[in-house]
C-alpha cells in the first residue's frame, strides 16, 4: 500500500498487506461492514469486565402507569457514570421514530458522577423534551427510546401471568425498546467531548454514548418486569436470564448519521486504519496455531447459525443475508480440504474469499479472521480516537502544482467522474428548517440546492482543479486561497487525504445511485451493531448488545463472547 507512513511502526509485511483505500473506501464495501472485536461496544464491555465495574440501580420510582424515574450507577475504578431514565406513558398516536417526534416512551441522560435529587428534578424538566430541553456540562449523553409495542406488551403479558415468553417471539424483534437518537459531544448543552476526552475510559470514540446504551438495555428489562408486576401482582415472574440475554437495544437510524462520516475525515481514517491494520496483522502471520484455527471454525459456525436471527423484510438485504449464508457454506466446504497449514494461511484464506465470496461474505470473513487474535490486535481499539482539529489547518506554503498533483493522486475516482452528467449531481444534502432534520433532495426537481451541505467532496475537488488550471503552478496555495476562498474546503480535504489514507469515501455521495444506508451501516458496524434491517434506502433499524452480558452478570461471564451468539439447537429455523 502507498501510504505506508500512516501505519508507521507496523512490520513491512503488514503494511504491504493493508488493503488500499481505493478498495476499502467504496460505498458498496462500506455498506457490507460487519462488527469486529475492535467495535466500540465490545471494547467497552472488555474494559468493564477487566476493571471490575459495578452497576447498581439506586433509584426506582415508577408508578402503576409506568411513569417515573430510575437511576443506574456504573462505578468504574476512577469515576461513576449514572444513567437517569425517565419512563413515560405514551399514547400510540405520538409514537414516532422520526426526529420530528416530540414525545417518547422513555428518555435518558448519562450523568457525569452521581446525581442529586435536585439534578434528577432539573433534568426531569428537560430530558423528556430532548431537543427542546437543555442539558448542562454535567450530562454527557442525551437519548430516548420507543417500545416495540408488539414485543413489549407480549413479554409484559407473559411475565404477568407467571410464564416466560416464547423465544421465537423474542427473536422476531430482538429488543423491547429502540433508541431513536443518542446525542453527545455538546449537543443541547451537554458536555463537550474535550471535557472528558483525556479520561482513559471515556476518550475512545462513542464510549460514553454506548455505555449509556448498555445501561438503557438493563432499563428496558426493568420496565417490562415492572409493568408485569403491576398487571400480575404476585403471579408475575422476572424474565429468564437466558431469554433476557437474547434481547438487545434496538436503534432506528436515519439520514442524520450519514454526513458524520464525511464531516469527520480524520476520525473515519482512524477507525478504518485500526480495522485494516488488524486484518493485515492477521494476514501477515506466517502460520496459524491449532487454537486460533479451532476458534475461527467455532465462530464461523456460530456466525452461520446466527443468520437465522438476522431477519429483515427488506428485499435487497434479505437477499444479501441469503448470499452470506451461501458464502459461509462455500467457506466451510473450502475448509474441508484447506487445513490452514501452509505459509501465511490467513492471507491465503483472505485471498480465497476475495476471489470467491460476495462483499458481505468477504467482510464477514475478515471479521472472523480477526476474532481469534485478540492478543495481536486489541491494542488497536485504543487507537481509534482522532481530533479533527489536528489535521484542520491548511499548509499554504505548498505550490498549486503540488496541490494539483496531490489531488490527482488522492482523488482519482473524482477526476474520473463527469459531474456535468445530471445523474452524478442528482442529490443534494440539506438541513430542513423543520426541527433541523437532515434530508436528501433531488437537485433537478426540488428547490433549495443553493443551501446544500458541502458533502460532495469529489465534486468540490474537481471544481478546484478546474480553477487551478487557470493559475500559475508555482503560485503559493495561501495566495490562491486569499483570492479564491470558495476553494478552502476542497484544499483542506486534499491535504487531509494526503495525511490520512482512509479519510475519504471514494464514491460520489451526490449520485442518483448512492444509497445512504451504506454510510449508516459502516458507522453502525464500528459501533458493534448487528442485524441490519433497512427500512428504505435512507433508514435502518439495528440491534445493539444482543446476547451480551447484562450489568448484573458480567462479573461472572465472558465479557466478549457474544458477537456471534452460541448455537442454540432449540432455536426456531
Amino acid at each position, binding site marked *: 500500500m502507498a501510504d505506508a507512513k500512516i501505519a508507521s511502526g507496523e512490520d513491512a509485511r503488514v503494511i504491504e498487506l493493508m488493503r488500499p483505500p481505493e478498495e476499502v473506501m467504496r460505498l458498496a464495501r462500506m455498506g457490507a461492514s460487519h462488527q469486529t472485536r475492535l467495535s466500540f461496544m465490545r471494547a467497552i464491555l472488555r474494559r468493564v469486565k477487566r476493571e471490575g465495574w459495578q452497576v447498581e440501580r439506586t433509584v426506582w420510582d415508577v408508578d402503576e402507569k409506568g411513569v417515573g424515574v430510575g437511576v443506574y450507577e456504573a462505578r468504574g475504578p476512577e469515576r461513576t457514570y449514572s444513567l437517569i431514565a425517565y419512563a413515560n406513558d405514551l399514547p400510540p398516536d405520538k409514537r414516532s421514530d422520526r426526529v420530528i417526534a416530540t414525545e417518547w416512551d422513555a428518555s435518558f441522560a448519562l450523568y457525569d458522577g452521581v446525581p442529586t435529587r435536585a439534578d434528577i428534578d432539573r433534568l426531569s424538566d428537560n430530558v423528556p423534551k430532548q431537543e427542546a430541553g437543555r442539558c448542562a456540562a454535567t450530562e454527557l449523553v442525551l437519548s430516548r427510546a420507543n417500545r416495540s409495542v408488539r414485543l413489549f406488551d407480549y413479554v409484559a403479558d407473559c411475565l404477568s401471568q407467571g410464564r416466560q415468553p416464547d423465544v421465537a417471539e423474542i427473536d422476531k424483534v430482538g429488543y423491547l425498546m429502540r433508541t431513536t437518537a443518542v446525542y453527545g459531544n455538546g449537543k443541547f448543552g451537554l458536555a463537550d467531548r474535550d471535557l472528558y476526552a483525556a479520561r482513559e475510559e471515556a476518550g475512545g470514540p462513542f464510549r460514553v454514548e454506548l455505555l449509556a446504551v448498555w445501561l438503557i438495555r438493563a432499563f428496558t428489562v426493568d420496565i417490562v418486569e415492572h409493568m408485569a408486576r403491576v398487571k400480575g401482582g404476585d403471579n408475575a415472574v422476572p424474565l429468564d436470564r437466558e431469554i433476557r440475554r437474547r434481547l438487545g437495544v434496538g436503534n432506528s437510524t436515519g439520514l442524520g448519521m450519514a454526513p458524520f462520516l464525511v464531516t469527520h475525515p480524520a476520525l473515519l481514517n482512524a477507525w478504518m486504519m485500526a480495522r485494516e491494520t488488524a486484518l493485515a496483522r492477521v494476514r501477515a502471520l506466517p502460520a496459524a496455531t491449532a487454537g486460533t484455527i479451532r476458534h475461527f471454525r467455532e465462530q464461523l459456525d456460530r456466525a452461520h447459525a446466527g443468520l437465522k436471527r438476522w431477519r429483515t423484510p427488506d428485499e435487497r438485504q434479505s437477499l444479501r443475508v441469503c448470499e452470506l449464508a451461501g458464502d459461509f457454506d462455500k467457506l466451510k466446504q473450502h475448509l474441508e480440504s484447506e487445513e490452514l497449514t501452509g505459509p501465511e494461511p490467513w492471507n491465503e484464506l483472505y485471498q480465497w474469499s476475495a476471489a470467491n465470496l460476495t462483499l458481505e461474505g468477504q467482510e464477514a470473513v475478515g471479521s472472523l479472521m480477526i476474532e481469534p487474535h485478540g492478543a495481536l490486535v486489541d491494542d488497536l481499539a485504543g487507537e481509534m480516537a482522532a481530533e479533527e482539529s489536528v489535521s484542520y489547518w491548511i499548509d499554504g506554503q505548498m505550490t498549486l502544482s503540488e496541490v494539483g498533483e496531490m489531488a490527482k493522486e488522492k482523488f482519482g475516482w473524482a477526476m474520473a467522474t463527469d459531474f456535468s452528467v445530471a445523474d452524478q449531481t442528482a442529490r443534494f444534502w440539506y438541513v430542513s*428548517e423543520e426541527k433541523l432534520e437532515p434530508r436528501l433532495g433531488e437537485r433537478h426537481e426540488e428547490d433549495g440546492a443553493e443551501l446544500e451541505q458541502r458533502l460532495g467532496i469529489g465534486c468540490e475537488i474537481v471544481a478546484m482543479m478546474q480553477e487551478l488550471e487557470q493559475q500559475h503552478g508555482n503560485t503559493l496555495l495561501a495566495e490562491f486561497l486569499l483570492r479564491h476562498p470558495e476553494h478552502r474546503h476542497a484544499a483542506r480535504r486534499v491535504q487531509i487525504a494526503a495525511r490520512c489514507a482512509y479519510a475519504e469515501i471514494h464514491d460520489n455521495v451526490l449520485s442518483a445511485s448512492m444509497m445512504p444506508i451504506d454510510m449508516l451501516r459502516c458507522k453502525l458496524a464500528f459501533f458493534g451493531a448487528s442485524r441490519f434491517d433497512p427500512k428504505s434506502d435512507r433508514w435502518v433499524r439495528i440491534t445493539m448488545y444482543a446476547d451480551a452480558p447484562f450489568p448484573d452478570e458480567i462479573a461472572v461471564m465472558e465479557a466478549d463472547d457474544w458477537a456471534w451468539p452460541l448455537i442454540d439447537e432449540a432455536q426456531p429455523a
Partner: protein
Amino acid sequence: MIVSLNEAAGMATKAAWGAGRPWGLAQEAGKAVSALEAMRLPGAQSLLNLLVTTDRLPCERMRPVATGKRIWVGKGPLCPVLTGAYISDGGGEEFAARLDDVYAPLLLLPFARLRCASVQITWDAASIVANRTDAFVEGNAVSKTVAKTVQITPLPSFTLDASKISHSSHWGPVDIADEIWEALSVFAHRTYVPATEASRLKGAGAGLTDND
C-alpha cells in the same frame, strides 16, 4: 444562554455561512469563535459585529491586496476571518505586519497564534498578548467600529509572564448573551431549507408506522 463550545462553533459556522462566507471559511469562523470563547473572550459578539456590517459582502472586497510588505491594506476594510486564514495558511512574506482598517480585529487572534509561538495584537482600543492557551488583554477587545490600525507582532517565546495572564483556555460551557445568540441564529436560519410536504414525505422513515 449557556452553550457548549461545540454549539458555539456550530452556530458561528452556520451564521458565517448564512451571511455569505464560503463554506470552508465559515468553518474557520466557527473554530475561531470557539477558540476565543474557550478563553472567555467575546468571540461570538465579535463575529456578530462583523457579520452585521459585512452581510453578503463579497470576500473580494474584504481581502488584503497589498501583502508581502509590512503594511496590508484592502480595497475596503479587511475581514479578520479571511485575513486570519491567510495568516494561518502561512501567507505573506512578513508576518509582522500593520493592517489598515480591520473589522472585529479580535477574530485575528486564533489565526495569528497558529503562525507563531506567541503573538501581540494591538489596535487603538486594546492590546492582546497570547500564546496557544493563555492571553493577557488590556482595553476593550470588542470593536463595533473598524479598527484603523492593527499591529501584529510575533513574539519569540511560548511562555507568558504568569502575573500577566488574564484569560486561559478551558473547555466547558460558556455564557453567550441571549441577544447575541438570537442575532446569530437569524443568520444561521438562512442556511436551512424550508420544509414542504413533498420533502417531508421523502424524509427518513416517513409514512411508516412506528407502533410495531
